[in-house]
């Protein structure tokens, strides 16, 4: 059973202009789902829709197999969320901020100490939030979302503004929550490199449309499809006919493009051309990493 499922979700701030088109998200229990896309692609809007902060123009949203439109309070019992910057009362201490959310969620007082320990803010809990650094505020925001030991964490760009150490710590914390407590996590980012180490599944959105959804392994397959060699030889026509027997190759004025799937194939392509007596003028192995793939599919 998916924890989050949307069907044909459309949304527009005005009737005529849709900013989200046909979003079909499916997030299974226990996964860490990375929601990726360039700035302005519609990530935050989608998350706001998932949390009922915006009303969809059409389509369905289901969380925990319940309709968000009718069962939002039951659904919110099991959710911890942080959207963009954390919502903090800066004139109050970190402890007071947690106390407010604790009371509204009606949970035990001792949980405050536990989450402060988790985000390493115990010593700063009696300091007013306006004296906190950006990283501390972000960690306090995370503590707020962890208070109710939620089954589902929805985090919109949680590492924004954090230094590299802060990013690593946040990643480790999320990984631990998922591993130790089975927390399902939806985390959005505009940088694949920021989350690729912890996510199990990915959804990529661009200009309000989902352009990829699947596992990291499926994205790796996509990576192989996009790995190609660009080459130019003393006789491109001959080279093309030699390579086209074994590889997916194309030939145009700029040279030959050959898609490969392994490093061994790169070596084989090279040898084939040399043994045929061809001079190689240009041999460019464009082996895309996941970031390149992400950039490629969000550009094109």
């Amino acid at each position, binding site marked *: 059973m998916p924890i989050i499922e949307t069907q044909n979700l459309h949304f527009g701030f005005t009737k005529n202009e849709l900013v989200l088109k046909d979003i079909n998200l499916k997030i299974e229990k226990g996964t860490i789902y990375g929601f990726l896309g360039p700035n302005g692609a519609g990530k935050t809007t989608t998350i*706001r829709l998932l*949390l*009922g*902060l*915006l*009303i969809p123009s059409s389509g369905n949203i289901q969380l925990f197999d319940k309709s968000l439109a009718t069962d939002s*309070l*039951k659904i*919110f*019992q099991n*959710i911890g*969320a942080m*959207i*963009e*910057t*954390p*919502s*903090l*009362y*800066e*004139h*109050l201490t970190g402890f*007071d901020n947690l*106390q*407010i*959310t604790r*009371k*509204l*969620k*009606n949970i035990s007082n001792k949980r405050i100490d536990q989450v402060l320990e988790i985000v390493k803010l115990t010593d700063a809990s009696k300091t*007013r939030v306006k004296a906190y650094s950006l990283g501390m505020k972000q960690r306090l925001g995370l503590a*707020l979302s962890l208070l109710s030991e939620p089954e589902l964490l929805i985090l919109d760009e949680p590492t924004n503004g954090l230094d590299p150490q802060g990013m690593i710590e946040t990643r480790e914390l999320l990984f631990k929550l998922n591993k130790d407590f089975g927390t399902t996590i939806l985390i959005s980012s505009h940088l694949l490199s920021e989350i690729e180490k912890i996510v199990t599944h990915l959804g990529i959105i661009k200009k309000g449309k989902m352009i990829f959804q699947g596992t990291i392994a499926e994205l790796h397959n996509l990576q192989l499809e996009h790995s190609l060699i660009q080459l130019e030889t003393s006789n491109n026509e001959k080279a093309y006919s030699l390579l086209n027997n074994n590889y997916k190759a194309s030939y145009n004025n700029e040279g030959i493009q050959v898609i490969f799937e392994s490093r061994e194939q790169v070596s084989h392509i090279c040898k084939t051309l040399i043994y045929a007596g061809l001079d190689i003028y240009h041999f460019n192995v464009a082996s895309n990493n996941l970031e390149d793939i992400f950039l490629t599919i969000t550009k094109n």
Partner: protein
Amino acid sequence: MSAITRAFSTETIKSKNTFALWLTFIGAAIIPLTLVITYIYNWKLFVPEPGQNPWEEIFARSFNGITLFTPLFIILIIGLLFNIENRANAWKHIFVLPISKSSFYLSKYLFLFWLLLIYYILFVSLTWAVGLFLGAYKKELNFLNSAPEWGEILTYLTKFIIGTLAIIAIHFWLSFRIKNLIANLGIGLTGIAFAILLNGKGGYTIYFPYSFPIKMLNYKPNPTYFLEDYHIISLFYFIIFSCLSYLDFTKRFKG
């Protein structure tokens, strides 16, 4: 604990270290403190005639003071209460908590009335304390040999509070819809300025909510009716605007 009680208790935490809380105490003290200065410097003017109760004079002056000051105080305090949420960008957090919008709306309204209750109780207590102090300071003022007419004071306050209900409901709605505190104050100040210019008088001022409290300047109770026309209209506005803002907050407002 019910959701409203829990939400109300969070309002008390949120108000810590805020200007809204200080304003409640300072606002209640301004008029009584002004009276201390007035009486001390001109005490001979306030020596009562034989048989006259000096408490009537001091409370009448005190009430005239809050008649002008309280509408501004109400507008400011409501703006500040919602500004706590706006500054923290808190709506997106609050609305994804397992607490209904109705509970949150009602707890906020209740907390506002709680602050206003503190304000009025402090105001009356301080005016009384000022009278006792002045009585000790100048025996001729005769405060210590007489007592305030508590029944009349309560009646006046009840009518005055009813007169302010329309402004409360309107600004409660405006303050979550218009996030800019200055804009809210601007609307309120314009309304109060018009009401003062009209001196609360004129054919249509009974429909103009900002003039209702001003109409209670030098108030003489109507021997026939407990409530004046404008009190009833204020109550009507309060019910209508509260219902509309409740529906807007719970059904449409997304923060």
